[in-house]
């Protein structure tokens, strides 16, 4: 049976992880390769690395880092942050990334999704969508710049358009749930999963193990992503998988 995927997400700045990580005694504080290796050993199904570096030099550092990650882990990983052209994606593919995620660049230039999937295959293209629900039970509006800028796009129609343009997966983050640790946006997730024929990754809101179970059962998500609960050892990947398995959810 196809397993539900658990995906730790690492924010990278200038080639180092940003958030402090307490869950394992690392020799080099902030070394993404060491952290990625540890997560892979713990049974993480995939990893996501988001480059939050702004500078050009930082971008080069990130590509070098992707190269090193690819040499050290042998589970799939996605990289994102600052990809706005085919050449950006190609550099990351050549460095060994399995998938790239695009977010605001796709909102600004939806044709980018078509171009990327035509050149590199749909399986390579994850479209990340940050959205906010304007009022309870209301529409979800797609946002960019970390939820600060509202766009014209609505979550469900934009997700469908992304699929039609060739996205291989949708990574949906509820900006209302992100960082609050009260669970994922399960209603919206379930609707995405029913509307679309490509996998949906749930993101934003993980606070405890039950939240993951709910994202898979109520939210019908194919994968769930989280950052701080893993980095601060509030939830360990092996224990989470044991719990989900007891709850009847197929995990590796």
């Amino acid at each position, binding site marked *: *049976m196809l397993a*539900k995927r658990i995906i730790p997400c690492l924010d990278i700045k200038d080639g180092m992880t940003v958030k402090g990580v307490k869950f394992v005694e690392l020799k080099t504080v902030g070394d993404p390769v060491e952290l990625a290796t540890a997560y892979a050993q713990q049974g993480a*199904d995939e990893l996501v690395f988001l480059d939050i570096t702004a500078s050009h030099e930082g971008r080069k550092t990130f590509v070098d880092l992707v190269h090193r990650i690819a040499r050290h882990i042998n589970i799939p990983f996605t990289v994102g942050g600052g990809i706005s052209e085919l050449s950006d994606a190609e550099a990351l593919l050549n460095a060994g990334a399995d998938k790239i995620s695009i977010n605001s660049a796709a909102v600004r230039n939806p044709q980018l999704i078509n171009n990327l999937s035509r050149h590199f295959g749909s*399986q390579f293209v994850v479209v990340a969508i940050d959205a906010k629900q304007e009022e309870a039970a209301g529409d979800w509006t797609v946002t960019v710049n970390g939820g600060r800028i509202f766009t014209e796009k609505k979550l469900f129609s934009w997700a469908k358009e992304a699929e039609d343009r060739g996205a*291989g997966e949708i990574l949906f983050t509820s900006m209302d749930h992100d960082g609050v640790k009260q669970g994922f946006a399960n209603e919206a997730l379930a609707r995405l999963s029913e509307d679309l024929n490509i996998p949906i990754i749930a993101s934003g809101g993980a606070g405890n193990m039950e939240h993951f179970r709910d994202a898979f059962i109520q939210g019908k998500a194919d994968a769930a992503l989280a950052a701080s609960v893993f980095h601060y050892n509030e939830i360990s990947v092996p224990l989470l998988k044991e719990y989900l398995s007891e709850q009847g959810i197929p995990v590796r």
Partner: protein
Amino acid sequence: MAQPEIVIIKYNAGNIRSVNNALIQLGYRAEITADPEKISRADKVIFPGVGEASTTMAFLKEKGLDTLICQLRQPLLGVCLGMQLMGSHSEEGGVDCLGIFDEPIRKFVLPRPNPDNLKIPHMGWNQISNLKSDLFDQSMEGSYVYFVHSYYAALGPHTAAGTNYLLPFSAALQKDNYFATQFHPEKSGPVGLRILKRFIEL
């Protein structure tokens, strides 16, 4: 022991580097090449693949690699699209393939209605079972390995491992010196590395 000569067939496939990285992790060196001479005399040949079937077949024909692959007598391992190209025909681009295995490659079809919200591609970790090949040892029965694909080979006489998504199908095929996996051993964690190691040590 002398290092075996391993070649990875070079073409415009996405996962060539990943396969090479996995071999490096195992302590092997491989050459990535499209040179027929080097491919012919290698001890082990790996035929990777992420891409589209009809364009890749056209590329193989242009380089004369289609005939060469069919004539090899040393162990060859096809991975993902590599495996599908070893089938008889692919529904992806409606192209005739190498025909090493008799099986045609078909596209997954979602059920209507789709109460379990199954998706295409089949993406993620799934279990392999009924293992029948030197690629595997019995401890791997039921292991999870990583798949990403929208086309599949049905179960048949050459099935070396099965899996189930939408329907039961071949996770691996074997016929004589030809081995193939639909999943990505290079992305399948420790189990995947063991499968690659077993292939290199055949």
